[in-house]
């Protein structure tokens, strides 16, 4: 399936599933012909309609597109006007389970920056079922689990300085020891106690269930 087919499926998915428009086909391109050959679409009257596998594939493209938008906006902080255009290119790169990994990294977002829903993937369902979020603030972590600090969600100078004092900078290894009455964690060979407001700004990527995402890539 090349990217043109993917674009076509995406276009059809948005029309059919999200906007619930009637099948209609302005032009018959090579992409649609190819999709037809792959039994991803079928002809209905003058237009095309997604088959079941086609709908799944289309949904997948939409998901990747919106995840790409989240990635570009939330992590790379791209300006909104280029988001859509760049996401269109990115969406074709998220293959071999990469979308799942990015979904995990972003904490299973439900909406894209424009506010449209992101179709949930398997990883999202699993995360909801296990109540596991692999990326959470320290205060929502589970005691005994190791993780890596990915981000400090604060711009307050004093808070950043305290984090530095404790060795908490992006990339630092951390283990949550307990959550109550204060948050206690291990950083290097030292332990620190902090209160909830500080624990809420340390965003940690926990090592739980990590294998699943990474193994899919390895295969």
């Amino acid at each position, binding site marked *: 399936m090349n990217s043109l087919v993917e674009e076509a499926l995406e276009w059809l998915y948005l029309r059919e599933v999200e906007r619930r428009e009637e099948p209609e086909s302005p032009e018959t391109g090579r992409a649609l012909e190819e999709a037809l050959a792959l039994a991803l679409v079928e002809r209905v009257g003058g237009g095309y309609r997604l088959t079941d596998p086609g709908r799944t594939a289309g949904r997948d493209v939409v998901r990747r597109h919106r995840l790409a938008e989240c990635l570009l906006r939330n992590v790379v902080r791209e300006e909104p006007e280029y988001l859509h255009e760049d996401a269109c290119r990115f969406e074709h790169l998220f293959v071999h389970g990469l979308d799942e990994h990015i979904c995990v990294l972003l904490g299973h977002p439900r909406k894209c920056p424009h506010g449209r829903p992101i179709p949930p993937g398997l990883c999202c369902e699993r995360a909801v079922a296990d109540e596991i979020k692999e990326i959470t603030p320290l205060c929502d972590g589970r005691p005994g689990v190791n993780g890596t600090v990915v981000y400090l969600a604060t*711009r307050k100078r004093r808070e950043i300085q305290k984090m530095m004092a*404790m*060795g908490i900078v992006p*990339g630092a290894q951390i283990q949550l020891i307990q959550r109550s*009455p204060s948050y206690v964690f291990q950083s290097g060979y*030292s332990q620190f*106690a902090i*209160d909830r407001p500080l624990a809420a700004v340390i965003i940690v990527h926990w090592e739980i269930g990590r294998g699943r995402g990474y193994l899919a890539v390895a295969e």
Partner: protein
Amino acid sequence: MSVTRLLTKMAGSGCHVEDAGPGPTLPKVLVVGSPNVGKSLLFNRLTGRYVTVSNYPGTTVDVSRGVLKTADGRYEVVDTPGMYSLAPITDEERVSFSLLVQQEARAVIHVIDAKNIQRMLGLSLQLAEAGLPLIVALNMADEARGLGVRIDAAKLQETLGVPVVETVATTGRGIPELIGQISAVRPATRVLTNYGAALEEAVVSIVEILPGGNGISARTRALLLLQEEEEGLAWLRQNVELAKAERVLRLAGRARCALRHSVHYYAAIALKARVEKILADCATFPVARANGVRERLSRMLMRPVIGVPVLLAVLYAGLYKFVGSFGAGVLVDFLQETVFSGYITPPVTRFVEAVIPWPMLQELFVGEYGIVTLGIRYAVAIILPIVSTFFIAFSILEDSGYLPRMAMLIDRAFKKIGLTGRAVIPMVLGFGCDTMATMVTRTLETRREKIILTLLLALTIPCSAQIGVILGLLQGRPAALLTWAGFMVVVFVAAGGLLSRVLPGEGPSFYMELPPLRVPSFGNVAIKTYTRVVWYFKEVFPLFILASLFIWVGRFTGLFDLLIKGMTPLVNWIGLPDQASTAFLFGFFRRDYGAAGLYDLQKSGALNGNQLTVAVITITLFLPCVAQFLIMKKERGMKMTLLMSGAIFVLAFSGGFAANTLLNLLGITL
């Protein structure tokens, strides 16, 4: 160094003094580093002096100085309060920072806890970048080795371009090598960290404008300006002409705008990346972490279910049993009854009466309020045993590493009164000596917290001397004791709650390192107790003598009677007999002194249970002593201190009045 040697050494000098001797001309050696890495111990090793060493961060609130004699000369060694980075947050850190920036140091020793080198080497990089004559001391090298951390010091030295020495301050290993480096060390020249294109560009353009000069490097100056560090800005105002300074600030401002995060954030990330890269070549760290008995015990203590009962047990056994019953009971009785009444007072009285013919002058020494019979007796027979036992208990707690665990347990509750768990350490110390505790409020982060704690200490925390006397006074009246304690808790919570609501400023935020639990060493506990008692005695003893003198003068000039008359309506207002005025007047000198004055009243049966309780409550609420007033003035300023003292005076009597009224209304007889 043996305990006895230290004791003899200290006998003359005492401790906690700002300075004792070395002139300003000696070349300086600064000892810097994070809290709790053994700076003070290293300082002691270098100078042969003693400053208090504790197993928790933030003990060194004063800058200690001492002299180091080496083969090639004498140096003034300066022990600085703990600092984590070149960007200070607390006052302690600011002190260290200023010393680094302003003093032309011959050498700067950065003390690192070797096992935590990953966290601490960043400051070394900053210090090297600042062009300071840096020596890195990998301290606690034995502990790191025990954990399996291996550091190739020679390779690290090569990479950093500054001397790196492994030391064990507790045993003295590596100290001669460290001393050997001091005379040879040169300002560091290597710039090791790249802060990323945006910052680097800004640094380069600012450095071009800044004048070359002495002290720290232009690169560090530029970074400080980019971080809007007060110290850096002040320097800019003083040393750079206005037009240039404005250009610098504009450049810095523009650079900051282009960044998504604060400069500190990027600097921290860059430093960490650099440290990791360096350590990848120079050190190995074991994967498995020690998880022994000590760690399990530590975790148990941090769970409220176990931690809170332990806390209560510690308070009961340490404070009530050891200090209250043993110190204030057994020891005081022995010193009062056996030593003073038996061996000291009678012969001294006989001697004075034989030598001095005038009864008036006799009174000064051996009368009811005489220097020997009242001043010295109170100081030696009542205060000394109580304070000593308290400091023994406190030193043990301190060295065990228990106090920070107590702080983390109590943090949430303390937030309600505008403080963090951090405040628990000065507060517990306050049960020993409020004056000392007021000094330690420096370890708190914001001015708001310091004000709240200073007032709470002065108003509600009775010091050990006072607790001792009060326990004695209320002996056999558990209901009265409970009422007093309950009343104090209510005032404490109410005053703290009110202040935290009224005072402007951001709420406090809590973070604290939890050092490993250790078995306290007998030597260190003994030395600490000794130095604290000496400090306390130096502060207090003259006041006692002075008080006796004042009272004597007052009595003969009639001023005393006048004051007592003035006090009488106030004292009557809270339901006490006229005689209690005398005790309250003493209370102005020291609150335990006043409480002790109540002793005699109680003995003569002039006070009933209710009156005793009310009197004790009022006296506890009083400002502890003159020394406390002076320290408050030093720490908080005259205006704030007068304001607080006035409020405390009013609150003390209104508290007494409220207690008396309440007891009467409810018809309670204690």
